[in-house]
């Protein structure tokens, strides 16, 4: 089924929050999913897998410790937390590449590389064992499907910007992944009660009498 980019953004926002991320990171998840969808990439399967892995765990275990290699105390980095750190520390890339340790759902990391590239006005190459991707913030060059997890990633300024993916105005998310995200998204909705139904929206009896 075809979805609007707004729908992709919205389900990601709610699902990330539903899985326990802070609102600001949920906003990043929403923007990242829209960024990917706008470049013809369905991020839903990797986001659903990520949320299933991080659900109920301490997010500090998934957050990067800055160092020579930015890695997670718990083993694998969350691409949303690591990605936010990358785009926040974008200016460091002007001095030297940044290296990240083991990373879950790596496709979700690419939008943050894009935003870091836009911030410093340069193309960035994101490399991993067996492949790489390029982005200047608007364009994304990525020819292979990214797996579920990478052992590490290197982000470096690059003079190259190979042929980019064609932009997309619609998303075609995997329906099973969509439903899995829907499960997380529903957690942000308060169960209906008669009190909230009657008063939460300000309704009183007889409102529709004219």
């Amino acid at each position, binding site marked *: *089924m075809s979805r*609007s980019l707004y729908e992709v953004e919205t389900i990601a926002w709610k699902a990330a929050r539903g899985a326990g991320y802070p609102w600001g990171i949920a906003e*990043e998840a929403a923007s990242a999913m829209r960024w990917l969808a706008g470049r013809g990439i369905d991020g839903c399967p990797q986001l659903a897998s990520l949320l299933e892995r991080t659900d109920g765990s301490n997010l500090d275990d998934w957050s*990067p410790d800055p160092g020579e290699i930015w890695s997670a105390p718990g083993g694998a980095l969350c691409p949303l937390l690591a990605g*936010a*750190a990358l785009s926040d*520390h974008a200016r460091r890339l002007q001095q030297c590449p940044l290296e990240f340790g083991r990373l879950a759902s790596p496709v979700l990391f690419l939008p943050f590389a894009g935003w870091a590239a836009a911030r410093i006005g340069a193309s960035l190459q994101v490399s991993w064992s067996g492949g790489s991707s390029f982005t200047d913030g608007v364009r994304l060059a990525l020819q292979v499907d990214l797996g579920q997890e990478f052992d590490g990633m290197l982000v470096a300024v690059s003079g190259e910007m190979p042929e980019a993916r064609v932009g997309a105005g619609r998303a075609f998310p995997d329906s099973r992944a969509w439903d899995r995200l829907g499960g997380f998204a529903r957690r942000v*909705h308060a169960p209906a009660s008669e009190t909230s*139904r009657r008063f939460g929206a300000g309704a009183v009896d007889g409102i529709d009498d004219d």
Partner: protein
Amino acid sequence: MRLARLGSMHQSRLSFMRILTRRMACENWKFSRTAFDMDEKGIGRAIYRVDCPQRTYSLVAFSHDLPDEMRSDRVIAEAWDATFALLDGVPDETDVERLEANVPLQEAGRYSERELVVSRANRSSRLWEHVAAALAAGMQPDAEQLNAVGYLMRTTAVYGSGKFGAVDYACVRERPEFAAPFQAEMLIVYLIRAFVLDLVEHVARCRGGKQAVPLNRDTARKLGIGNATGLGMAPFIVNHAALFNNWIAAREEAIRRVRSVPTATEAELALFFDRLQRSEVMVREWCSGHPVQRSKVERLQLDLQLIKARIEDCPIGEHCPWDRLVEWSEAALSEEGQECLTSLILEPYGTIVDELSERMADPDDGDFRIDGSMSLAETCRLLRGHYGWALEIDWTVPEETARAWYISEEKLEPRLGERHEEDIAEFEQPLSPGRDAARAYADLERWSPGEQVAAFLLKHPEHRHVIRRVQVCRTAPYAEIHDNTISASMLPIDMLRAKLSFFGATHFDPKSDRWVRIRMYAGAPYPGELDPGNCEDWIYPEVVA
């Protein structure tokens, strides 16, 4: 930007309805009804075609047989008197079948990139039957009853921008006709109004046969489309901070330009005076059953008299007359009166005001990247500048956090709950920027001012959403409401009023502290009647001698 002031705003030249009618008239848009297949009860479908310079759009309307007991303005309703879609292009039979299977379901339907907007409307049970019966009997309806309601149908939702699968705004924003905000939404409502008039006359003809008469054109023009707006709209201006900033900034810049005008010509003064007098008529007809709004309207009537008296006492032709008038109003008038006046002074100055409508969209669609290299000293300075009011609130006092915004599972309706009485805190939406800024500030104070935002957010991801808002304020000074949006005394209708005034709504009639009825397009020329001579002043009713 306080809630009470936002809750006193009025339509102006920069309202989205007026931007649209101006464009439609100046570009000579063509309208035609290409299908109207209705039975004698007015049940069936209709198609209206709109040709603008580069493209064609179509309203596809479905009219239903709705039992009275199912007619509800609430978002939780599941059936309506009429349902609509605005389609990109001209529908073929396959499109109509697809729409017929989905549009009547509204939120439960699916839409494609061909659909720009989806909407629905209910008949005013007070007025619809009266008008249909009168016309069928060969008589015109009672003017008093028409004025009291003001519309034959009211919309209860207008969904655009990618909702339920419809096209994303980003995909159409480059089209000149959609460059200003909410233009597709305003277009569908304009077309719905034309459809509603056709439908009531059709029903009257079927009932009355040769005896039936059409609605008098002047009477028809006074009718708008009603709209019932609830809490769902209130979070919008918080969630779209940069966009809302652009609306306010455009209006403020318009006011600044007019206040800088050194002298007013006779013609400019005459036009202002004309709109002022016609505003009196509009305010006289503005009935509200809500005690707060009723007293505000009464005071506004007085304020309009005070403005007239002021102009008569101190002729205002020279020495930055509008600046002096606005300065005087700040002590002499209520907020409702001040806001009405600032809208009115823009009226004679289309040549310097109207172009500002091009700045009202948000080119980034709400996306804002945090600048991690900003120092915490600068962050704190910005935070104090834009949230100083929030730092002065004692957030441990229960009344200050009495409310919590949440989304109900039921049809995903935004609601407002009592935090200290219901189990809703865990579902709270991030709609309290003031409290969240105060929380972030408490942690920021423990950090060295020389550190950067990037390091702070690595340790405090829970403050990320509010740091983003703080940074948005650096270039968008009107992004934030400077009031507590979760206090016990907060009135959500103030937030609704602000947004609806930018739509160009009139006759605000709050039905509680959290939902409001309004009129849209009351006074507007219908398709085919619109021209450059009447596309501006239609919103002001004529003074009857």
